[in-house]
């Protein structure tokens, strides 16, 4: 028993260290975002002059003037649309892979994995040229399509694992109960795979929300520039001020949706919803 006590202490210390390591930069960004331009370089961890000036500057001038509002809308829209399409397509694909025995099933899974492993940077150049020729450059679909390409494998893999956990007899039962294959899928399989769907949705959303590479390469204006790319184009109030404060404030703001997303769905991301379906 002595041993477990000591182990506990060691674990606690290790956990605290990791937490400090992970959270200090976050706290620092928050602290920076509340500093005035004059005190931003004072190297104090806690702001000496507390102000909302940086946040105000982000939204100053409304949608036409502000450097931040339009990118924020772009980010939200593009990430949500990507997540929606990705989950729908991935759930169909994953269901087929988990349930049906069709030729080329393993090739499909291997292909999905290969795409996920593919370095995105090597596709950026060709995409840039193609998108300009097709008129997709600097549009929402121009970003949504590459995001789908790279998020689908991830979503498919996650969902296949969840679908495999669902007893096949449930689907048979639904069919015998008079459900069409699609009804069986929608009314029985999907509700049971919900935790998996939410997990996959969060992963896809975060991927699309955080992406910088495609966003900076395939956009040129506020028409489709997302927040991570827009941050790079922030300017200070005058030529001589660094935009540090506003970047920090913007960084804090873009973290918020992620936190909300995870908090909203974390209760749903609890496995074990299928318990009681079959004798276990």
């Amino acid at each position, binding site marked *: 028993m002595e041993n477990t006590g000591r182990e506990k202490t060691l674990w606690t210390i290790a956990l605290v260290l990791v937490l400090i390591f992970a959270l200090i930069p976050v706290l620092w960004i928050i602290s920076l975002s509340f500093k005035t331009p004059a005190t931003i370089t004072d190297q104090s961890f806690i702001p000496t002059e507390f102000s909302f000036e940086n946040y105000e500057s982000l939204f100053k001038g409304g949608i036409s003037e502000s450097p931040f509002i339009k990118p924020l809308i772009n980010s939200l829209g593009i990430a949500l649309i990507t997540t929606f399409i990705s989950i729908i397509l991935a759930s169909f694909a994953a269901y087929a892979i988990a349930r049906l025995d069709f030729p080329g099933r393993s090739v499909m899974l291997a292909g999905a994995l290969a795409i996920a492993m593919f370095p995105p940077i090597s596709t950026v150049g060709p995409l840039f040229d193609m998108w300009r020729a097709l008129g997709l450059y600097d549009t929402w679909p121009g970003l949504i399509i590459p995001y789908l390409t790279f998020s689908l494998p991830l979503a498919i893999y996650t969902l296949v694992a969840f679908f495999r956990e669902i007893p096949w007899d449930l689907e048979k039962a639904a069919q015998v109960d*008079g459900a069409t294959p699609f009804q069986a899928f929608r009314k029985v399989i999907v509700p049971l795979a919900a935790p998996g769907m939410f997990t996959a949705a969060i992963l896809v959303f975060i991927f699309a929300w955080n992406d910088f590479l495609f966003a900076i390469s395939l956009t040129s204006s506020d028409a489709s520039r997302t927040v991570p790319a827009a941050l790079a184009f922030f300017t200070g109030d005058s030529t001589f001020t660094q935009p540090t404060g506003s970047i920090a404030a913007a960084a804090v703001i873009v973290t918020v949706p992620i936190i909300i997303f995870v908090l909203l769905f974390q209760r749903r991301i609890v496995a074990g919803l299928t318990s009681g379906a079959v004798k276990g």
Partner: protein
Amino acid sequence: MADIVLDHITKKYGDGYEAVKSMDLEIKDGEFMILVGPSGCGKSTALNMIAGLEDISDGELKIGGEVVNSRAPKDRDIAMVFQNYALYPHMTVRENMGFALKLAKVDQKEIDRKVEEAAETLDLTEHLDRRPANLSGGQRQRVAMGRAIVREPKAFLMDEPLSNLDAKLRVQMRTEVAELQDRLGTTTVYVTHDQTEAMTLGDRVAVMRSGILQQVDTPGELYNDPVNLFVAGFIGSPSMNFVHGKVSGNEIELPFTTLPLTEDLRSAVGDSDGREVIAGLRPEHFEDAELVGDHLGAGVTFEAKIDLVESMGSELYAYFDAGSDQVDKVEQAASEAGLDELAGGDTNQIVARLAPESKARRGETLKLWVDQDRLLLFDPETGERLRA
């Protein structure tokens, strides 16, 4: 309600394996039909084909006179109870039972009425708003039954519905299932590997082995008049004793005694003197010679050294040696008939079921009596029963 007709139904998989071979079976309207056999005999495949969950490779399936081969499960109007119940975990008991009716767009009031009625029958009323995860095994089983009965389908299909229950509950549910079926009078196909369930539940029993239907008959007929070695060995517990026998004139030489042949058996074996056969005798056709009264028929008495005695209270099982020189031939025939997994391997031992008053003791020699009229003979090559 409807009758179900299987006309040369065959299931062939992509790799050429035939799970069900040209199965012919007629299930009458309202009949309780049991499909029984060891695991892998194709009984569940046959059931799934009736349900429409597996494609029929060849042959014709009729439910209520209509060919339903190409109909989806939902259009066959049948209800199924699964071995693992397959309850929808995200729905309450009420929703589980009403799901089929809801899909059929039945009026909500009507659904509620039917579900409550079924719940009443199955003693589930107080659990209607609970989820399957919070129910005991027996309750889940009843919900699965309830889901089937609210629909008033043409037929019930049950795939080993009791095998996940513990022994005591299984016996209790067995009675309930039998009563329920009797009351509803719905055509039922029930798959099981348990010969006790088969014997106690069914109006008729279809015995299957390796995809081939062996015999379809009432439990009594299967027991008394099996068509081959497999059915004889599969039905009955403890199973039938098989020994090697040699015909000699009007008698048959068994390892432990010689029995006179009845006229029927005499004509069944033909006049080939010296023909070798497999003889089958059920444990209850033996008796302690001292306890045999006049009420039992003609029999032969012999002496045997008892190896083991098991007392069940109401009866007593005495085991004795059949003589090892015979074993090989019987074992070979038994394994050809697919009985090796059933006989417990030891074909050498004969089991006799004796009255509890018997003085049989382990290691002692006992005078045993055997009923000569109940002897069954089988062809050692084909396993077929030899009859007149």
